[in-house]
């Protein structure tokens, strides 16, 4: 028995090499997602969590207030992604094409905020924006305000911190896309009489589009489901998709509704991603036309 097993391993080594990772992926990524879908389509409680299949959860979830929260998250994710794209593109452009010396140092400088703890970043902002934090201290020192301004628990704080945290996510993909552009193409464009604007719009932008797309969708998807920032800076009153999901699972303890909400919001996320993908294709097509 043991000998046979040994032989089997020897003949199918490579198959056995890939199994652990695949089992891990199936058991802890695919299975939980399937389980969430099953939960969304069923009802039951306690040890009989899945008793019968029904669509009632979705009926209950399809209310104006829930849909509004999903749209609020879509808006948050869109604004964060577009704003960080617009702000980060020139930085990536500069880094890729204009810096010759100390490139490694600049790359390091920009990848530190990308990988440091989100909680620490949120804490830093908390520290600055708090009632008796740095900004209020500065404002009252300058005599601009009499009473401390409350910056926290507002959309302003959430948008500001989201933007700050996800900015570095945008730079790396765009940087590596611009870096890959053959510099001869840019030189050729100048040689043939195009000015900077034309070269940028018809050469650099279309060729860096894969990076722009990757960065945009990375930021869009991650900030759609963001939990930490709305939970800490929204004061548990301004709900977004991430905070509402945790509300369903931790406080409401209604897993079926929570699962249905996850399915609904992921569906909306998918639809909006398709829309943005179409938009990107349109823009790329436009920029390739030379008038």
């Amino acid at each position, binding site marked *: 028995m043991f000998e046979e097993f040994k032989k089997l391993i020897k003949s199918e080594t490579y198959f056995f*090499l*890939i199994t652990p990772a695949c089992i891990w992926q199936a058991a802890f990524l695919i299975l939980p997602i399937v389980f969430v879908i099953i939960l969304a389509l069923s009802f039951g409680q306690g040890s009989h969590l899945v008793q019968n299949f029904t669509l009632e959860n979705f009926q209950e979830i399809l209310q104006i207030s829930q849909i509004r929260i999903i749209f609020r998250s879509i808006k948050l994710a869109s604004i964060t992604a577009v704003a960080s794209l617009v702000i980060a593109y020139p930085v990536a452009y500069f880094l890729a094409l204009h810096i010759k010396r100390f490139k490694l140092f600049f790359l*390091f400088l920009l990848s530190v905020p990308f990988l440091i703890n989100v909680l620490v970043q949120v804490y830093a902002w908390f520290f600055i924006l708090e009632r008796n934090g740095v900004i209020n201290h500065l404002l009252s020192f300058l005599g601009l305000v009499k009473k401390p301004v409350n910056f926290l628990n507002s959309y302003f704080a959430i948008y500001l911190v989201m933007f700050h945290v996800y900015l570095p996510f945008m730079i790396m993909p765009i940087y590596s896309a611009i870096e890959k552009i053959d510099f001869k193409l840019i030189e050729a464009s100048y040689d043939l009489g195009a000015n900077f604007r034309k070269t940028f719009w018809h050469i650099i932008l279309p060729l860096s589009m894969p990076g722009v797309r990757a960065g945009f969708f990375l930021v869009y*998807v991650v900030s759609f489901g963001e*939990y930490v920032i709305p939970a800490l800076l929204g004061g548990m009153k301004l709900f977004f998709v991430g905070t509402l999901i945790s509300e369903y*699972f931790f406080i409401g303890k209604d897993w079926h509704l929570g699962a249905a909400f996850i399915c609904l919001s992921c569906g909306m996320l998918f639809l909006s991603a398709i829309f943005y993908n179409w938009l990107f294709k349109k823009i790329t097509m436009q920029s390739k036309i030379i008038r």
Partner: protein
Amino acid sequence: MEFRLRKIALPLYVGIFCIFLYLPIMILMIYSFNRGGFPAQWQGLSFCWYYDLFHSVEIWRAFQNSICVALSAAFLSVTFGLMLVYGSKRLKTNISYFFYSNILVPDIVIAVGMLSLFSYFMVPLGLITLIIGHTLLGLGFTVPILKSRLDELDYRLVEASLDLGASTFYTFRYVVLPFLYPAILVSTLLVIIVSFDDFVISFFCAGSSAQTLSLYVFTMIRSGISPTVNALSTIMLLVSSFFILAISLLQARLAVRDGK
């Protein structure tokens, strides 16, 4: 005009950008050396919060948990990733691409799915479930890095080694592994950082018994600000920047050696 725009305005813009990126963290670090407990008033230099930090039992325990989870997750995900990448290369399957999706699924969906599955099968939440979750997260980072490195390996070397009578293990140990070594190091460091920084999966899968550093910072923010957290954040920042420095130096050396 255009020339001036690109020579002056662009560097200026990048400079302002960097300041915006680093300003909150810098303020945080400076105030960790403030003597007073009141946040915005500067009352002189002091290391008292660091002293507090190193004498807090709770923080030490959270730190130990974080280290334990990060090292186990890094070990598991790098080992599994290595096996997967090498095996699927020899089998000529494209199964590795399947692992690229781990970063694209929103964290909270994975976390909630695991939480409900674990509680349905009555798996007690704790360090083990945390390691499981972080290993899954880590696979999404290690597999792409290791795969892209392995694709650069001249495959004739492996075939030559096998033809000359080396066993599979011997070939792997003395031909493939030395070539992959920098990528292994980079992905190990990356998974350690990612695991240390992860909050959402820890929040859902850790239960009440196991506290990590991220969870500790979260509860501290909930209860208001305290200079001890400033000190803790400063140390965490310095440690992770050291790791990131190691990663970028390693990658740069790789690029130089391959003559790019």
